[in-house]
């Protein structure tokens, strides 16, 4: 029997469940390795060579190289693990979160100061108002 996933109709949201975790195991474990300063240095010196030491898919490696966090999450990454890449790059959680919304860093920060993204129109896929351009099928 497949996993029960009552959260699949929530827009713009990926739940880190067992299926995602299995898909992203090595991507997330690569991220954990960046908690060591020596590994951060090796990664920054030659990102591609460092990634090639891990049994990740090519798509996962490319998503990391592109710093495409939405793609990383679709491929099994979890934000708390991916935050290690952000820390390596010197980026804050707010910069990382904002980068996934299609908004500029400034526009995202301003939205948060004004009280954040509204819940109205963001509960169900069927009434999703903040759907970014090009996401009509998700």
């Amino acid at each position, binding site marked *: 029997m497949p996993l029960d996933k*009552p*959260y699949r109709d*929530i*827009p*713009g*949201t*990926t*739940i*880190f*469940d*067992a299926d995602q*975790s299995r898909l992203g*195991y090595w991507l*997330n*474990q690569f*991220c*954990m390795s*960046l*908690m060591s300063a020596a590994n*951060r240095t090796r990664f920054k010196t030659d990102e591609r060579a460092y990634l090639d030491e891990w049994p990740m898919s090519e798509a996962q490696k490319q998503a990391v190289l592109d710093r495409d*966090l*939405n793609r990383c*999450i679709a491929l099994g990454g*979890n*934000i*708390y*693990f991916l*935050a*290690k890449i*952000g*820390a*390596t790059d010197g980026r*804050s*959680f*707010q910069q*990382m*979160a*904002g980068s*996934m*919304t*299609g908004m500029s860093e400034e526009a*995202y920060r301003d*939205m*948060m*100061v004004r*009280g*954040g*993204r*509204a*819940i109205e129109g*963001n*509960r*169900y896929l069927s009434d999703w108002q*903040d*759907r*970014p351009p090009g*996401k009509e099928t998700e």
Partner: protein
Amino acid sequence: MMARITASVFTSHVPAIGAAMDLGKTREPYWQPLFAGYEPGRAWLRERRPDVVFLIYNDHANAFSLDLIPTFAIGTAARYEIADEGWGPRPVPAVQGHPELAAHIAQSVIQEDFDLTLVNRMSVDHGLTVPLSLMCGQPPADDFRWPFAVIPFAVNVVQYPVPSGRRCFALGQAIRRAVESFGQDLDVQVWGTGGMSHQLQGPRAGLINRAWDNAFLDRLIADPAGLAQVPHVEYVREAGSEGIELVMWLIARAAMADVAGGAAPRVAQRFYHVPASNTAVGHLILEET
């Protein structure tokens, strides 16, 4: 004399709050209203300093990777180092544990059928240290330690399945029975941390739900058993993917006397502020009467 629970404290544990304190930004206009909301709590805590804080939080891929994912993990060590989360460890004191009380709670609740993981070595991340910083401030250099022992209690709210609100509530009740059967004269506070509404991932990142958060606070005070029946999907839909952290507040709330048939607690502080970085911050102090 036996140990007793004197109060529960609830607070968000946003990493940027720790960074603001560590970098001396607490008086900046962005942060000043948030820290002002914790001044009453700091004054309250100085008057009612406990011997031990049982601190419920979640690890954020620091002590636990995908190698090992305990649903409920109790720290039974004498000392916990501060985690390097990738930005370097926060410049705060290491945490002193209370191994005897922790071992007693573990024995008591495991024999009541809650399958805890025992942890003798782990670092603690912002989930644990930011609540300490918010409530205690930065300890002075000439007495660089936290003013009480801490038992870390880590809950998995990162990889699903995460425990239900109902399970968290029942666990909190068992923790109360465990503390009250410990034969030492100790004042114990139970702190529940995380939340409130926030989402750190995907196109819906930045979600805040002020009405839902405040209804959660209302029900946490007045109807915690009813609140414990709320399913995960409602937390995620209404309070964002990381809003699920709020199930941890139910553990602390269930450890209060009224849930065991005693008197209702006094609300010593209630505070709500948006934003801290991506997150709605909630804070509550419930004192036994």
